[in-house]
C-alpha cells in the first residue's frame, strides 16, 4: 500500500467515521445551550429534575452523525428515538407522570374550599390570550394552542398537548414551561403587589374545615366522572391523575402508591427529560419560533397570574366572606411553588396571616384547569 493510499484511507475514516469534519456552527451553539441548562440545573438548582436530563439530551444529540435520534438501516428507532417514540409520541410518559403526581397530591385543601376551582379556571386566562397573540406572529392554530398551554404551568400537560398538536415545538415549549415554573418566585410577586392593595393582602381567611378520609376517597371518583364526561379528550391525563390519588387515599396499596410516587416517577422523568432534550437538534431548534415561544411563555405566566387574582377579586364582589386575592396567583399550577409565593407575600403583608393551605386549593385547581384547557384544545382540533 502506498503512502497516498494510506493517507486516502485515513482521510476517508476521518470523514465517514468521525464527527469532527461534520460539526456545524448551529450544533456548537446548541451544545452551548445544553451546557447552559445543565449549569442552571446543577449550579443554580432551577428545576433540576427536568432541566438536567433535558440539558443533557440537548448536549448529546447535537454532536454530528450520532446514532441517537434517527432510525437504523432496518427501520428500527435508535436509542433516544426509541424512548421518544414509545414514551412521548405514544403519550405514555406524561400520563404516567400524572399517575405519580396524583399519588403525591393531597386534595384536602381543595375539597374543603371548592370555590377555589373557579380561581383555577380564571388562572387559565393567559393560555387563551397567548393562543390569540401567537396567531398574529404566524403560528398555526395548533402551534398557537401548544404555546398557549405553557401558561398552565403544568409540564406534563404541556408535553402531552404539544406532542399531539405540534411535536416540532416540543423542545422549546417544554424548556419554556419548566424554566418559567422555576422563575415563579420572580415573576409573580411584582404582579401581586401591583394588582392587590395592601388592605386586601391582609385579608384573613377562615380556617378550612376538616376533610374526612371518605371524602378524599370519593373525590377522585367524582372528579374523574365529571371531567371525563364533559371533556373526554383529557381522559388519559385526568384518569391517571385521579387513579394515582385514589390509590393514595384508599390507603390499601401503600406499596403501589410508594412506587408511583418515587421509583416510577423517577424512571419516567429520566426518559422524558432526555427525549424532550433530544428533540432540540440545531436544524430544528435554531429559528425565530423558539425565541418567540420563550417571550410568549413569559407573557403567558404573567397573564395567568393576573387572571387568577382578577378572578378572586371578582368573586369577592359577590361573597360575604372574602378570599385573600393573593391566593388567586396560586391558580398558576406550579405546585407548590406558587402556593409558597402566595404564603410568603401574605406573611409580608401580615406576619400572622398563614395562607399556605388556602393557596393549595387554587394551586390544585390550576392543575385540573390546565388539563381542562388542554382537553378543550384537543377537542377543538378533532
Amino acid at each position, binding site marked *: 500500500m502506498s503512502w497516498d493510499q494510506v493517507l486516502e484511507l485515513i482521510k476517508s475514516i476521518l470523514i465517514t467515521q468521525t464527527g469532527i469534519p461534520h460539526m*456545524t*456552527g*448551529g450544533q456548537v*451553539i446548541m451544545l*452551548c*445551550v445544553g451546557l447552559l441548562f445543565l449549569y442552571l440545573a446543577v449550579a443554580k438548582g432551577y*428545576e433540576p*429534575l*427536568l432541566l438536567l436530563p433535558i440539558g443533557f439530551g440537548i448536549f448529546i444529540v447535537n454532536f454530528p452523525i450520532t446514532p441517537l435520534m434517527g432510525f437504523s438501516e432496518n427501520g428500527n428507532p435508535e436509542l433516544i428515538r426509541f424512548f421518544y417514540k414509545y414514551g412521548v409520541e405514544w403519550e405514555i410518559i406524561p400520563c404516567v*407522570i400524572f399517575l405519580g*403526581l396524583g399519588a403525591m397530591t393531597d386534595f384536602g385543601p381543595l*375539597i374543603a374550599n*371548592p370555590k377555589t*376551582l*373557579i380561581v383555577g*379556571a*380564571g388562572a*387559565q386566562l393567559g393560555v*387563551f390570550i397567548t*393562543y*390569540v397573540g401567537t*396567531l398574529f406572529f404566524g403560528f*398555526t*392554530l*395548533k402551534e*398557537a394552542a401548544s404555546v398557549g398551554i405553557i401558561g398552565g404551568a*403544568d409540564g*406534563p400537560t404541556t408535553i402531552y398537548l404539544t406532542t399531539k398538536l405540534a411535536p*416540532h415545538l416540543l423542545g422549546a415549549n417544554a424548556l419554556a414551561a419548566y424554566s418559567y415554573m422555576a422563575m415563579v418566585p420572580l415573576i409573580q410577586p411584582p404582579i401581586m403587589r401591583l394588582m392587590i392593595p395592601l388592605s386586601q393582602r391582609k385579608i384573613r381567611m377562615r380556617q378550612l*374545615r376538616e376533610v374526612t378520609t*371518605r371524602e378524599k376517597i*370519593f*373525590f377522585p371518583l*367524582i*372528579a374523574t366522572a*365529571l*371531567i371525563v364526561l*364533559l*371533556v373526554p379528550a383529557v381522559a388519559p391525563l385526568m384518569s391517571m391523575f385521579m387513579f394515582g390519588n385514589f390509590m393514595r387515599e384508599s390507603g390499601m396499596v401503600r406499596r403501589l402508591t410508594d412506587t408511583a*410516587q418515587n421509583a416510577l416517577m423517577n424512571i419516567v422523568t429520566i426518559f422524558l427529560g432526555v427525549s424532550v432534550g433530544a428533540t432540540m437538534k*440545531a436544524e*430544528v431548534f*435554531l*429559528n*425565530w419560533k423558539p*425565541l418567540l415561544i420563550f417571550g410568549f411563555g*413569559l407573557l403567558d405566566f404573567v397573564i395567568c397570574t393576573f387572571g387568577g387574582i382578577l378572578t378572586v377579586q371578582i368573586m369577592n364582589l359577590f361573597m360575604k366572606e372574602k378570599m385573600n386575592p393573593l391566593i388567586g396567583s396560586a391558580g398558576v399550577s406550579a*405546585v*407548590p*411553588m406558587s402556593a409558597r409565593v402566595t404564603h410568603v407575600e401574605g406573611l409580608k403583608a401580615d406576619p400572622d396571616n398563614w395562607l399556605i393551605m388556602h393557596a393549595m386549593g387554587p394551586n390544585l385547581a390550576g392543575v*385540573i*384547569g390546565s388539563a*381542562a*384547557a388542554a382537553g*378543550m*384544545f*384537543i377537542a*377543538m*382540533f*378533532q
Partner: protein
Amino acid sequence: MRIFIAAAVFALIPRISWAEFSEDIEKPKPEFSRQGDRVTAKLIPRGKSTSVLIDFEVSGGKLTKVSGVDFETAARPEVDTKDFRSALFMAEVAEISPPGAEVKVKISSKFFSSSTQYHVFNEHLEKPWMISEAGNIALPDFLQELVVTVKDGGPYDSDGAADGKIVFTGGPRDSFWGYAVGTLFIRFFGVFIVLGVLMIGMIVSGKIFQTMEKKKVKPAEKPKPPAAAKEKPKSPAPDKKEVSPEMATAVAVALHLHLSSLRSSATMPLSVPRLDSWTQHGRQQMMEERFLIFNK
C-alpha cells in the same frame, strides 16, 4: 436576564445556521376517490387532527377529474392561506351541451358551516379571486352543501372558452379570525363550566358527607340541656372534693417552683445561634426535600 441572553444568542447566530421553518407544515394533502359521478376528497384540513371528506358532484355535465391545487400558485396579496383551511381544488367538467351552457357544481362536507363561502380563482382575469354566489344549503346529518353555478366560458371557467369544457378552480373559505376568536371564547368559558360543574359536585358531595359524619357522631353524644351549653357548671362533679383557697394557693406555689426549676437559667437568645455548616446544610436539605417531591 435569561431572555436577553437568549435573544443575544439568537441574534448572533449566522443566518446559514438557522433552520428552515417557513415551510407550510399544515398544508392539506387531499386524496381523491371516485364513486360513480361523485368524486370524494379526503384530507386533513388546517387546524384539525382528523381527516374530513369533501364530495364533488356536477349536474349539467360530466365531472371528469378533481385534483388538489397548491395554494402557492394562487397566492395573491388579497387572500390569506389561513382562510382556506381545506385547500384548493381544480374540477374539470366535460360534455357540456350546448357549449356555453351553465352547470351546477355541488361541493358538500360535514366540515363546512353555514358561513362557509366558495372562492373561485381564475388566473387569466385582472382580479383572479372572486367570491362565488354559492348557495349554502343545510342537509340532514350535519352536511352542508355549496352549489356554484358555473358558465362554460364565463369568469369562473379558467380555460376561458365556451368549448363544452370547464376548468373550475377554487376552495371553501371560512374566516380564520372569526373561527379562532370565536372558539377561544367558547373554550375559555368552557373551562369555567367544567370546573364550575366539578365545584357544584364537590359542594353537594361535601354536604352529604358532612351530614353523614354528623349523624354518626350524634347517637354517641348525650343530649345536653340548652342551659348547660351556655353556663359553666357551678356544682362540682360528685366525686371531686372542694379545695380550700389555702390549699389552692399552696398547690399553685408548688407548681410554680417545680416548673421554674425545670426551665433553663439562660434566657432565650434573641438572635439565631450560629450554626455550623453541617447543621445548616442539613436544615437546608430538609426544607428542600419537603417540596422536592412536588417538582414535576
